């Protein structure tokens, strides 16, 4: 059913993010066809013009390609997809670091904390 949207960010940008995440997670494969504008509009409960804008935006970033009369496809260009994956990682890391900085954690503490976290995860998994 209609997903909820963050009220202060344009919907087309939020849709862009969702599609990118689905591509990164592999839910939509490389070279695979995206849902038609109308189908995605119905699925997410948004105006078809908004979906069109989303696809246009993704096309400009080179993540999808429009093929005349056939629809919109995820690019097969691994370089672009790799770049998109990297950007997402960097964005999440910078958000994490900024928040930790605001709370007053030092770089060493963050690194130590991350290392500790992964060690714990490993032992937990090892015990299972």
């Amino acid at each position, binding site marked *: 059913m209609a997903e909820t949207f963050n009220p202060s*960010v344009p919907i*087309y940008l939020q849709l862009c993010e969702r599609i990118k995440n689905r591509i990164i997670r592999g839910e939509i494969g490389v070279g695979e066809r995206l849902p038609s504008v109308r189908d995605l509009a119905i699925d997410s*409960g948004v105006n078809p013009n*908004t979906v069109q804008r989303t696809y246009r935006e993704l096309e400009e970033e080179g993540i999808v390609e429009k093929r005349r009369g056939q629809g919109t496809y995820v690019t097969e260009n691994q370089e672009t997809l790799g770049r998109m994956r990297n950007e997402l990682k960097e964005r999440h890391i910078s958000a994490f670091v900024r928040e930790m900085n605001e709370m007053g954690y030092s770089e060493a503490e963050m690194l130590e904390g991350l290392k500790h976290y992964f060690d714990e995860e490993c032992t937990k998994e090892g015990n299972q």
Partner: protein
Amino acid sequence: MIQLDHVSKRYLTKKALKDVSLQIEPGHIVGLIGSNGSGKSTTLKLISGLIRPTKGTVLVDGVMASRKICTKVAFLSELDAYYSFFTVKQTLDFYAQTFGDFNRAKAEEMIDFMKLDRNQKVKHLSKGNRGRLKIVVTLSRDAPFILMDEPLSGLDPMVRQSIIKGLISFIDLEKQTVVLTTHELQEIEPLLDTVILIKNGEILDTKSVEEIRSKENLSLVDWMVKEYEQ
């Protein structure tokens, strides 16, 4: 395109619209929002030619709006406007005879989509199903302009969702333009391209919904409250 040029409308001594000028571009879904009694319904009725302006002109695709404009404009009234002794099927028959642009195939498809029983009498339908039937007969017309006065009011969330989905599925924005009034802003927000904010018979602002989000960081509800308080 719909154009209102310095339009005023008075009901006896009450001024409903005061010198309103606006343009509605084709291919958009436009929300006309404002408090009760702000002039939303009056604006829609003027565009559909059901009432005439006291002053000014209303043009639909360059033609002065009158009763004859109904070939171009499909109007969904907030009131129940059909014969209650008809069955659902007879209601469709009636609309098909009345409007040349009535798309029977689309109507049948929507009746199934809305899960309506063709043999039930309109007076025996629940309020929600009457709301759905109204949507079916309005959207089944291949009219270039679809005007809907309060399509969601008084209906439960399931009915509202099915109406919103029906709208997205059965409107062709390459050929049609939708203008609707509503108070269910949160639900309708993802559906709108543009909003026209109206207060006491005057247009306060016309804005793209995405612009409100990106420039003002506000949801439609918050924006409306802010604009109204100024």
